């Protein structure tokens, strides 16, 4: 089936949340690092000696998990986006610039920072969730032609 499921899946959500937290907690307790994903990628681009290898290994693990799911449960992925590719490209650029300017994304601010709790992360998370809801709702009206 190519139709994306929008069904509410609470059990999978809770189990997935536990796995994500286990990932971040293992990095924090084991190595003392806050594993925010935008920060990990930006660090690879920076390529500072002695601070790059662990980031690359983390990404290798992520990609391996993605490949595994492609084989065992390919339906976890979307194969069609609701907006055209130019809008996806614009979205990527905004996310890249925005997460560098605010120094974090859903994982770094939304999970690592909020649970600490860090005031900066709480503010950032409220802003990107608020703006995200407004944007997605507006774009949703456009794509549905309402």
């Amino acid at each position: 089936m190519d139709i994306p499921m929008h069904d509410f899946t609470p059990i999978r959500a809770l189990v997935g949340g536990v796995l994500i937290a286990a990932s971040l907690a293992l990095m924090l307790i084991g190595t003392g690092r806050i594993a925010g994903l935008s920060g990990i990628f930006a660090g690879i681009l920076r390529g500072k000696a002695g601070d790059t290898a662990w980031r690359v290994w983390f990404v290798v693990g992520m990609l391996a998990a993605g490949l595994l799911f492609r084989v065992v449960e390919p339906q976890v992925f979307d194969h069609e986006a609701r907006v055209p590719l130019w809008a996806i490209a614009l979205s990527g650029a905004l996310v890249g610039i925005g997460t560098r300017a605010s120094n974090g994304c859903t994982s770094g601010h939304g999970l690592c920072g909020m649970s600490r709790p860090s005031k900066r992360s709480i503010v950032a998370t409220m802003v990107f969730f608020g703006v995200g809801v407004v944007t997605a709702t507006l774009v949703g009206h456009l794509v549905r032609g309402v």
Partner: protein
Amino acid sequence: MNRATIPVISGVLFGAGVCVSGMVRPSKVLGFLDLGGSWDATLVFVMASALVLHALAWRLVKKLTGPRFGTAFPPPASSKIEAKLVAGAALFGVGWGISGYCPGPAVVSVLSGSTASFVFVATMLAGMLAFDRTNADG
């Protein structure tokens, strides 16, 4: 223990977590963010379970002297709220709301065969590079 061991295991756990939870799928993220569609609360459940558990991890960090395989725990969080933080989070929110992709899940789906995730990751990395090159303190 090899220096790669913990990061690789953490990466696999993260990838599996976003796949199992549904967060690897932008349509599910947009199902939460888009109030005009058929609303889907999945994202809240993912965030809530991860937040509760990770808050416990931070409490454990306070009781330990240092990480077993690292030099030190992170310094106390800064509480400075600058315009850059808010403006950056707002730009991120616009981008996230357009596609439903955020950095982690997008990279996990790059090898899934989805063209959109590939395009997203390419322009995201370009955006990061452009910002960091023009902001020496970033």
